[in-house]
């Protein structure tokens, strides 16, 4: 595909971490999450094979209109998917609310001496 449009918005791009590479990693990870390109290729392969074997026409997929129920179950699935990816952020909040903030060395000390 020809990229005819600009990809960068004019204006300095803010970085939030002291090391901008961390922001870049965030962007890459979310890009990967969004793309799941391996998975999409795999789905495509399955579709191609199914069509070749006469089990499915790919046009049926394009013409498929999901019901409200299917739309909702997809939205739910995506929410679970996101909660898996963003787990590392949320466990910090959980730790804070449970006051689970003792240094690890104190646990080592506790078992060694206990």
């Amino acid at each position: 595909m020809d990229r005819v449009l600009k990809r960068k918005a004019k204006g300095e791009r803010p970085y939030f971490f002291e090391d901008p590479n961390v922001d870049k990693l965030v962007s890459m990870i979310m890009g990967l999450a969004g793309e799941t390109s391996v998975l999409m290729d795999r789905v495509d392969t399955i579709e191609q094979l199914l069509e070749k074997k006469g089990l499915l026409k790919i046009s049926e997929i394009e013409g498929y209109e999901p019901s409200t129920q299917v739309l909702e179950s997809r939205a739910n699935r995506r929410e679970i998917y996101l909660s898996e990816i963003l787990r590392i952020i949320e466990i910090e909040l959980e730790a804070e609310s449970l006051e689970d903030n003792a240094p690890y060395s104190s646990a080592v000390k506790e078992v060694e001496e206990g």
Partner: protein
Amino acid sequence: MSENTSVTEQTNHRFLASTNHDEKARQDFVRSYKEYLVKNIHAGNRERYEKTIKPKFEKSQNREPGDRFEVRDLMVKDPYYQMFSSLLRTSQEMMWSSCQIPVEKRFTALNEEIHLSNGESNQGTLKLDENLEVPRYHKAVDIHCQPGGYHSEFGENDASPGMVYDRAVHIYAMGQMGPFNDDMGASIVLWLKENHPDFKPLRILDLGCSVGHSTVPYCKAFKNAEVHAVDVAAPMLRYAHARAQDMEAPIHFSQQNAEKLDFPDGHFDLVVSHILLHETSGKAIQNIISECHRVLRKNGVMIHAETPPYKGMSPFDAFMLDWDTRNNNEPFWSRSHEIDLDNLSKNSGFDLGKKIETLIPSAFQIEKVKRSEVFQGGDFGGGGQWFIYGNWK
């Protein structure tokens, strides 16, 4: 796991760039990603601030942080806020990219379809002015991080920024502005009908209309009115005209700067804008209000929809609503939220005894929509209300 997030899909129209299975899935991902941030990640900033950051500051300084700038200095060092911001900025960039892809794929054909349709126009009009200078405040950065902004042209008769924008707004607002992205216009219409039922405007002007999302509701609500809409960006107007025709909304679009309109004095009964003022500048905002005064007839009214000013907000809330200024290419956002609105009106000749300054409910109140009910960066439409500023003449 909590209950399902609502799925308000954008209503299709002839010129909405079509997407294949994966292109739609990519856009759906960005929307889910944004919804997830609002629902599960945003609130952590307040928690970090209230439980850890503020108490620490109070202990060392014997007082609370005094304003949003002090809050900012504390928050930007917080790893949670850093990650939140990094994620939110990334979601914005992915949103634009996911909306560009289907447009770029059929770039020439889509532009030709729109050009052809505009040429055969039988309701409303489109008047472009290639000599109009796009103002500096519009070009200083690409607003909202849309690459190329609203004004750049990437080909002949280019309407692609409008195509990209139409789809992106729906994702940006996560459907919270309704299936037509028209909630701001629809909310003002509703407010007028409920509060001023006898006001029946015959000439209406929408300033900074972009693709006309909020213009269309005025056409539908005031069927006898002649509706005009202006913007500085030609690509937006090309798309707006095609879209309005398909929606059977006869609107007269013209490429003009709201600071200096070509309409005669006293021409309009109603002049509106929707999130325009914060995209202008310290000088332009005053010029625009003065133009509103000039083109309004006596007893006409101007109404501008925005997010609420910072005054009266806690320093933390103001800080969170201010996120876009630095992080989403909104250079005038801060200033416009702190500007003296009374002064603007007074300087333009309006009588402050007839001013309007209030929060109005969103017209899009479908039960399924789950809003955060907070005005905060990255959650546009989440407040469930709009701030309107205006004046009767």
